[in-house]
């Protein structure tokens, strides 16, 4: 009986998860305005993220770019069989970036970068229909990177550098669909870990085929963020030896998957720039989210089974006049979540991204960069089929609809 109960409660623990695809592609307002292209664009210090090899081609000795976005994203869930619906009330996410480069000599430029390529914040109403999978989650990861960009010839450069990651996670869900204390309060667990460190690297190359045509390639390594000794706190657990959940520590690992970008840019009539990027994110590393509890609490294994996913990005830039540069873009972002693994921590299906923006060149040295992104998601009927209860798998099914509107502001400074 007790073993069964354990299985019921934790065999299916649905997740300390962040998001079905918790990649947040907002690493530069100029790039974002052009569909988040940039692996083959030499524009400003945003290259530190998109292709460090290109930093050496920037004209100025010192280049700085910094900015932040405001992510307004909400998800609605409904199930028409039972007439239930819920909507997330997620805090506004504020991913940011700060990049700087310094030209040491004709063939070497050094740089520093800080950015937030992964993260998620989803807050469902407490005790909603999917609360056995997630009530709320907040995942943050800050990447800090030292960079070197080396010119091999006027046509070819290489770049890259080591990455330090500092991450945190806070996640809450109910222990199962029905367990309560005597007063009917749902039993739940919060796992919390912060200050988790990890290391990785990126490497890139840029090739200028002609004056107008560039090619770029950038690879950022997978970084496994391993939380050790995080706090697991159990609330509203019945006072009973049948449910012996006590606060404890946990270990868990979450991958920040590797990403490969290849692309090109083509300049036309001096005023127009077209860019295309292809991203491959190696999500298949995210097979399962496993949480090991330090005490006798049974470990929690949650299949995710993500697949590698592609993103196709297109951008266009137009130099309108001395002060204004206009940009538009589009991308198609394939979800790494496979059908039947649609968990509400990040209920993300394929997205069409429409972007636009502009730069105002306030002076020779200083520009303001603005961009906005509108993500269009189809309404989708999906389920997560790997939650189990007393040995039975119990799908969590419904219709999801996501919206995301993301305005952002940044600055570019060059000296």
């Amino acid at each position, binding site marked *: *009986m007790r073993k069964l109960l354990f299985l019921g409660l934790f065999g299916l623990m649905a997740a300390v998860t962040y998001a079905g695809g918790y990649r947040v592609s907002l690493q530069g307002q100029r790039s974002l305005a052009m569909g988040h292209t940039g692996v083959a664009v030499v524009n400003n210090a945003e290259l530190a993220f998109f292709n460090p090899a290109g930093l050496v081609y920037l004209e100025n000795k010192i280049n700085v770019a910094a900015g932040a976005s*405001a992510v*307004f994203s*909400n*998800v*609605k869930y*409904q*199930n*028409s*069989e*039972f*007439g*239930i*619906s819920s*909507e997330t009330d997620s805090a506004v996410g504020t991913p940011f970036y700060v990049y700087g480069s310094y030209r040491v000599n004709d063939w070497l430029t050094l740089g520093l970068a800080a950015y937030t390529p992964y993260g998620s914040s989803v807050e469902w109403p407490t005790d909603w*229909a999917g609360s056995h999978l997630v009530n709320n989650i907040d995942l943050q990861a800050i990447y800090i990177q030292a960079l070197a960009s080396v010119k091999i010839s006027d046509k070819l450069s290489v770049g890259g550098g080591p990455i330090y990651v500092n991450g945190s996670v806070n996640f809450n869900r109910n222990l199962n*669909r*029905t*367990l*309560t204390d*005597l*007063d*009917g309060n749902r039993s739940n667990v919060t796992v919390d870990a912060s200050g988790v460190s990890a290391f990785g690297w990126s490497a890139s190359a840029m090739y200028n085929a002609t004056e107008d045509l560039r090619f770029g390639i950038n690879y950022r390594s997978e970084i496994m963020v391993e939380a050790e000794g995080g706090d697991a706190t159990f609330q509203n657990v*019945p*006072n*009973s*030896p*049948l*449910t012996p959940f006590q606060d404890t520590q946990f270990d868990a690992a979450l991958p920040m998957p590797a990403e490969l970008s290849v692309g090109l840019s083509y300049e036309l009539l001096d005023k127009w720039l077209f860019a295309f990027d292809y991203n491959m994110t190696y999500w298949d590393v995210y097979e399962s989210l496993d949480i090991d509890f330090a005490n006798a609490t049974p470990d929690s294994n949650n299949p995710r089974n993500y697949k590698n996913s592609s993103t196709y990005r297109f951008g266009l830039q137009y130099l309108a006049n001395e002060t204004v540069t206009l940009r538009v873009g589009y991308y198609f972002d394939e979800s790494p979540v496979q059908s039947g693994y649609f968990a509400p921590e990040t209920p993300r299906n394929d997205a069409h991204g429409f972007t636009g923006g*502009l730069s*105002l060149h*306030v002076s020779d040295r200083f520009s303001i960069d*603005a961009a*906005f992104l509108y993500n269009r*998601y189809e*309404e989708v009927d999906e389920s997560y089929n790997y939650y189990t*209860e*007393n*040995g*039975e798998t*119990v*799908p969590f099914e419904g*219709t999801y*609809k*996501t*919206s995301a*509107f*993301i*305005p952002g*502001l940044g600055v570019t400074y060059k000296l």
Partner: protein
Amino acid sequence: MKQYFKYIAILALGIVSCEPEFDNPVDEAGAYSNGEADFSRYVALGNSLTAGYADNALYITGQENSYPNILAQQFEKTQDIQDFTIPFMSDNAGGLLAGGNQITNNRLVLSVVNGDTLPRVYTGMQPTTEVGNVQQGPFSNMGVPGAKSYHLGAAGYGNVQGIAVGTANPYFARFASAPNASVMEDALAQDPTFFSLWIGNNDVLGYARTGGTGVYQLNNLQPSTYADNDITDPNVFASVYSEMVQALAANASGGVVINIPDVASVPFFTRVPVNAIPLDAQTAAALNQQFSAYNTQVLPGLVQAGFITAEEAQSRQINFAEGQNYVTLQDESLTNIGQAIQGAPFNLDPQTAGLLSQLRQATPTDLIPLTSSGILGTPVGDNPNMINGVSVPLGDEHVLTNAEQELIRDATTRYNQVISGLAEANGLAFVDANAMLNKLASDGISFDGGFVTSDFVTGGAFSLDGIHLTPRGNAIVSNRIIDAINTTYNADVPKVNVGAYGTVTYNNEVQ
């Protein structure tokens, strides 16, 4: 420059106001339909099952998970309805106080003591619900634990003064609009547009749960003369039930009536096996030796004397064997041989004669109430040769014999004919709870997490008292009612997800 910022600000505002929208949102008007029914003022009438009584007590979370409250939440998805009001208890402990003295037990919780996982009375807090503290109504859930069919129309059934003398019900006293009010009166005063009625269970259950100590009041048309453990006369039932349905249906758009389950389908009567006595070969042989004279001399002698039939003698044989054995019991329907065997040629002492007077061994059709499980196999006094259910037969109150069950079945069948007949005559939705509970007991009812069955504690349908439903059991009942309403009134009320409703509560604050 400033202008650009302005545009960005406007853009940002537009973004904030942009919400995801479904093509067919379930939370907007028109997603579901009330059909020809009007749920705007729904009133539920009934007994403990309607009140949300569970685990041998009424408490807040049980009331929240009562089927009428579940229904009201689903009705609300089809139209605007008036708040569904409930005379909530003061706590989740469940016991009642009258003038500060506890008059009913706290709820049962599933606890583990010395390795035994059993329902025990929760002692984590003193009850705080004072009967004399009358709640201000009106209340949509008019379910009154303990009420029989003829109680709903009884004036004064909620009079606090009548509780001690048994003419009033403490649960109704808590929320009756006036000491002299009846449940029906308070219900009709709300001018219900829709009603549910599930009453009559206690008309047989009072008899059943006491092991059939009462009588079947067939042809006694005066319910005021009935004892609590009697079976209500079917004609009395028909008359009061019909009166209630007429009164409720007169101004309502519709209603649903629910029939009476077979008592033998609930774990209170099926949990304790009749062959509950384990014996080794040696003990069985010793016991057979004890009963040898009874089996081979007394019974044949009485047949020979024409005192009992050969058939009855056969039914009174006592035999034990290695393994599980049927309990012994006193069956009041047997010929009392107590006097006869004190005389010649048997000349038994009065004590032995008393034990043998209406003795027989149980058969698979007998039922033992859950509350009698504690007595089985215990010694009388400290005498190891006087074991209850073995050498000492169980009393009448500890066994519901097949003959007693026949009376219950007869009454239940007749009540149910009345209920389905009135449903049809008045165009009301009808739910066959009798068939539903039989299905729970035989095959179980499937849901997304497996099967809900009548198994005690583990089956999921019945609370720890073995009679009343868990929240999950209430969800199943609610779905059946919704089915019936949708069919009868051409409505589209969404069902509930059974797996989202819990079963029994664990707690170790017990004594």
